[in-house]
């Protein structure tokens, strides 16, 4: 199963990436490890995860087609 991962704000800049697909990830915790392998520098920054537009935690079980986003602290306005 494949999920789509979006990188925003400073995370898009430090990773040089705004979208990446990952396979065989069962939970956010799994996905986090894979992202950490690819972009270790990203983990110097503070961020949260959303799954399909809803902020969630590491225990969240993923399903095929989920859209995950890495969200630095919001700074609108």
């Amino acid at each position, binding site marked *: 199963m494949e999920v789509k991962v979006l990188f*925003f704000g400073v995370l898009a800049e430090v990773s040089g990436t705004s979208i990446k697909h990952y396979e065989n990830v069962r939970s956010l915790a799994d996905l986090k490890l894979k992202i950490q392998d690819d972009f270790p520098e990203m983990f110097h920054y503070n961020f949260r995860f*959303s799954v399909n*537009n809803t902020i969630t935690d590491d225990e969240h079980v993923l399903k095929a087609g989920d859209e995950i*986003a890495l*969200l630095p602290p*919001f*700074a609108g*306005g």
Partner: protein
Amino acid sequence: MEDNYLISGPISQKIISEIILRIGRHKDAGGNMLFLGQVRADENEGKRVKAIEYSAYTEMVNAEAEKIKRTIFSEFDDVKSVEIIHSTGVVSTGEISLLVLVCSGHRQQAMQACSKTVELIKATLPVWKKEIYEDDSHTWS
């Protein structure tokens, strides 16, 4: 989701005028509060901001903006309408990047609801800003 809450570039005088015209649609809206957030020429460690580049997670912005509107309507029974527009992309100092308009029967709820809408935008809309300085360096905030 009927609306799009994001606009590319600064919120122009023309857009502001169009939004303000909507007040007249509500003949029972005696109190109307418009918040306009402008990009400030702040100084940061001796460097002056010349623009902010906003990026946003569009789908989630739209979902969260809808949620904000539902919250406001459920908490303020006198409110007739809530409009939210946020810029994406580059907005220079002296230009507007956020607009909130609350139309209400009376002024008290207009003011409280407008203030609460702006607070919820700051807290819940997935928008990020890159401050661009006059020397073209930048920082994220």
